[in-house]
């Protein structure tokens, strides 16, 4: 988008939307839409309050633990599936099933099995993230340039060398692509789990603010959450683009 010959940066229209929000807020169009300035001043008050920091900590902790398991289990599983036909045929139907299943329906099961705490939230997060990581790692390994593998073999590479020096790197662009989408899904998963198990993290905070109709508090938390999620997704996007050329010679 160009204005008077200048290129407007990608997300700059958000400023316009922010202004609109502020004006509508000032006009008191709706009780549910307080002015942006009021939201930010509330944010200034609550960002170092105990409840907020605790919610942030609990969410961050369950998110990191969730994606940790998703990555640690997902990448090797995907690579093995890409290399072993039998394993692939046994697991792929299940991976595809969970990939398209509405995982929200599983949260009540996790709640009765693992309690109303962080454990259930972590497992939900892992479940949201892991399937796409598996699928992408598998796809990455399956489209490795055959002659790269031959090359390593022709120099007498051991299976471990071939794995560490060839397979992992050659599949890295797809793996990172999967990890990126997995992380974005995990953000959604961790929030959905907290909403349903509403005594932890932001789930508890939302409950508190909405029961007291604290609109600016509510929006302040939402904005922080969305900003964090967006930053995370952009950072991972930058990282994924950095290794794009690893895949440049494929056939």
């Amino acid at each position, binding site marked *: 988008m160009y204005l008077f010959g200048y290129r407007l940066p990608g997300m700059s*229209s958000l400023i316009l939307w922010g202004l609109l929000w502020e004006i509508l807020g000032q006009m008191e169009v709706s009780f549910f839409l307080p002015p942006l300035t009021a939201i930010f001043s509330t944010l200034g008050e609550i960002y170092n309050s105990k409840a907020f920091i605790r919610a942030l900590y609990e969410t961050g902790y369950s998110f990191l633990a969730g994606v940790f398991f998703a990555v640690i289990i997902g990448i090797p599983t995907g690579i093995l599936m890409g290399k072993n036909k039998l394993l692939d045929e*046994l697991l792929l139907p*299940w991976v595809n099933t969970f990939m398209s299943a509405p995982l929200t329906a599983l949260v009540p099961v996790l709640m009765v099995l693992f309690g109303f705490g962080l454990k259930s939230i972590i497992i939900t997060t892992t479940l949201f993230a892991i399937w796409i990581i598996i699928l992408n790692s598998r796809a990455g390994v399956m489209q490795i340039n055959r002659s790269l593998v031959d090359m390593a073999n022709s120099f007498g590479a051991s299976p471990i060398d071939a794995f560490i020096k060839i397979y992992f790197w050659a599949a890295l662009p797809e793996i990172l692509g999967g990890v990126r989408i997995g992380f974005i*899904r995990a953000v959604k998963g961790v929030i959905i789990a907290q909403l*349903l198990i509403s005594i932890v993290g*932001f789930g508890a905070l*939302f409950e508190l603010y909405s029961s007291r109709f604290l609109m600016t508090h509510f929006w302040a938390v*939402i904005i922080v959450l969305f900003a964090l999620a*967006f930053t995370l997704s952009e950072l991972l996007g930058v990282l994924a683009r950095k290794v794009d050329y690893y895949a440049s010679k494929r056939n």
Partner: protein
Amino acid sequence: MLSRSFFLKILSGALIFGAWEYAGRVGVNYALPTFLESMKALIDMTISGLIFQAYADTLRPLVVGVLISAFIGIGIGVWVGLSEKFDWLISPIFIIMQAAPLAALIPLLIMAYGIGLTSKVFVVCIMAMPVIVLNTSVAVKNTPSSVKEMARSFLGSRKDVILKIIIPSASPVIFAGLRLGVSAGFIGAILAELKITPTGVGDIISYSRMTADYPSMYAAIFSIILLAVIFLNILEKIEDVLFKGNNQGYIS
């Protein structure tokens, strides 16, 4: 003779369900019924018709929400794909929606629209819309410019170019976006039933959890997941037939 892949599918199903049955029998957890108990509960629900009634309730906000998202989403997506100004103005919102945990807005929706159908439809819409808009706009933007120029060189009007070139060439990806939208809509519909008011399948889940009737709870969850997976697989098969496998959407 059974084909190898069919045999392996059966085997893999048997392994997982067998593991579930075994875990249920040895009593890993008091809240884990066996696979067979759960299936029996599912059959009971099917015979009594309870499950169909539940589906009707669950699917209503889903269908309404997905239809609204499809119309508005494809409309916005095409517009964003065609107009650079509109792209600049609108895209950032959907890019953020795509990355953000929109479920966090549910408490607000409840405050604003109560606990009825409206809120639930809204939940489905906010889940389904972003992926539809983004897939549509990317598909429209990616229409090969040589084909567009061809149409214009044969004196096609702008309307011709849009209807006869851009939409057909974008439709595989748009359709894939719709499928992903439905998938996200399912998540939203069930989330709405569990979080806003228990109706339909969400009601069976919540009620049987409260009464500790775990087989019924697992049966309801099993059946709604099965329903979603089967439905999405059918959509994917339709895509394969319509577009011959040329249907990679942008998952997120």
